[in-house]
């Protein structure tokens, strides 16, 4: 083959496969939306699921997912920020720092089911928290920490040297510089990263099967005292999240409309992930404008 013909053929193949990937995504999103959106209405979003009858909803599951997300972020953000700041500002270039970096890398590559099993062994059984939202939140914290650490470290490193040196010249302590000079500048990147991490939490299921549990007890949405067993806010009750529900409906659902429920729930999940993605971009940009006064 002449080089010019070969060039044209190769370019054609590359463009074809690139567009093929776009087609896969559009096809999947289209399928989910067409199958799922027709099933989504207020009743579906708010009513409890049915085991054998038609017409079950995803109300408790949707609430569990959102509440678990909040609980997880309450634990993850302070820990992740702290470790990230250490890596960016306090860590010296030595063996220990290399080891910590390796730890972060290993932790982020552990299969989520292994982290879930660890949760089952230690948090559920040894700590005695049982299948509960709290166990789920702690496991998801382990799952999410590496990402938070990496995002925070990158964000702090992206702040220009001069800003830090200006603070040092003023005689501020290092911690004061971190909290009042570096943190505001780093915030847009941290916020973007945190929201993306939140999206990951929202879709995670494998780590939650054995920690937050696969069932939701009857909860009363008019009792908001977190100490009551039947209250939605009680962090020590078992809670099946939306992602776990999709898995369960698909693998052992016996309701006649199981397929529709799975499609509807998948559509809700994908829409939530899309919202998280858009929110992350928009908020990151808005904060950047606010803190840097660049129009």
């Amino acid at each position: 083959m002449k080089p010019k013909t070969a060039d044209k053929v190769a370019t054609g193949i590359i463009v074809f496969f690139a567009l093929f990937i776009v087609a896969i995504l559009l096809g999947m999103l289209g399928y989910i939306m067409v199958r799922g959106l027709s099933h989504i209405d207020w009743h579906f979003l708010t009513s409890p699921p049915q085991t054998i009858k038609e017409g079950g909803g995803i109300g408790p599951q949707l609430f569990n997912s959102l509440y678990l997300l909040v609980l997880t972020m309450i634990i993850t953000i302070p820990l992740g920020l702290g470790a990230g700041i250490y890596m960016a500002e306090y860590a010296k270039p030595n063996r220990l720092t290399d080891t910590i970096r390796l730890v972060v890398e290993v932790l982020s590559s552990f299969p989520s089911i292994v982290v879930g099993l660890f949760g089952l062994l230690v948090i559920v059984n040894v700590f005695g928290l049982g299948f509960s939202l709290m166990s789920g939140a702690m496991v998801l914290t382990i799952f999410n920490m590496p990402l938070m650490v990496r995002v925070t470290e990158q964000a702090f490193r992206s702040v220009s040297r001069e800003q830090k040196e200006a603070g040092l010249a003023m005689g501020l302590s290092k911690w004061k510089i971190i909290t009042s000079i570096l943190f505001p500048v780093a915030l847009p990147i941290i916020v973007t990263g945190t929201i993306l991490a939140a999206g990951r939490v929202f879709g995670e299921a494998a780590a939650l099967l054995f920690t937050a549990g696969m069932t939701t007890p009857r909860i009363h949405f008019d009792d908001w005292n977190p100490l009551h067993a039947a209250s939605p806010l009680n962090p020590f009750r078992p809670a099946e999240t939306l992602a776990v529900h999709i898995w369960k409906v698909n693998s052992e659902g016996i309701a006649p409309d199981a397929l529709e429920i799975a499609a509807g729930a998948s559509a809700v999940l994908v829409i939530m992930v899309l919202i998280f993605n858009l929110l992350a971009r928009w908020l990151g940009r808005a904060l950047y404008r606010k803190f840097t006064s660049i129009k």
Partner: protein
Amino acid sequence: MSAKPDQPYLLRKHKTEEWIGRGYTTICVMFLIVIIISIVYFVASKGITTFTKDGVSVSEFLFGTRWSPDDNHFGAFPFIYGSFLTSLLAAAIASPLSICAALFMTEIVPTWGKKLLQPVIELLAGIPSVVYGFIGLSILVPVLRDTFPGQGIGVAAGAIVLSIMILPTITSIATDALSSLPRNLKEASYGLGSTRWQTIKGVVLPTVMPSILTGVVLGMARAFGEALAVQMVIGNAPHVPSSLFESASTLTSVITLNMSNTVMGTAQNNALWSMALILLLMTFVFIFVVRLLERRHRL
């Protein structure tokens, strides 16, 4: 606080602040280290009971093909084989696609290719694994059932679902590598009269190959540890499949299905923990390989 009382107030405040900040961040980092040590310790100590307490030999567990916990046969080879087969196949399907996507973004149409494909790749990475499983079950499996012999569920379905899931991992690493390639390499090749494809084939790809391989290994690691999407489409039969369209199992799918049906401390349950230990050890192997590739790349 070690500040002496005769030190000026500001210096004392300064030191206290510093002490709090350093202390807090160090505790956070210690937390990471404690977690990783306890994960390895607890999973390993539970995983080896199969061999120490239940008397299953390591070779029987790793290479035995018979899995029937009721009459004390704990050969996990079908699952180990299934895990390796699906993740290798997934990497084999995803790698060419990812390299094409990366080349499309950096070499073919650098002007708008990235604007088109970048969001697509990010969205593919963001879709939850259960949704992939659901789509695989409701689109892919029927198509495979109509085109090929068998029930549709099986190794092929699992590998295809996994390949789409690891596309973003490989693509983003390949794209990073391609866009950090020095311009002068490509310009020298064009200067000698090469076509674009000759440049890509002869200069660009060989130079970034170690980075692309890093991406492929990371993608494989992700495929190896993925649980629910695979479990939904692979069929979960506990034997070594004789064709790609036959039902099989992976380590993750067996753990997912059986962990809650077995009682803690029984031999079958312990065998599941041994499989978790294999997953854990494979993570270390994958990271070791990635580190080796990175070291070679730096030279």
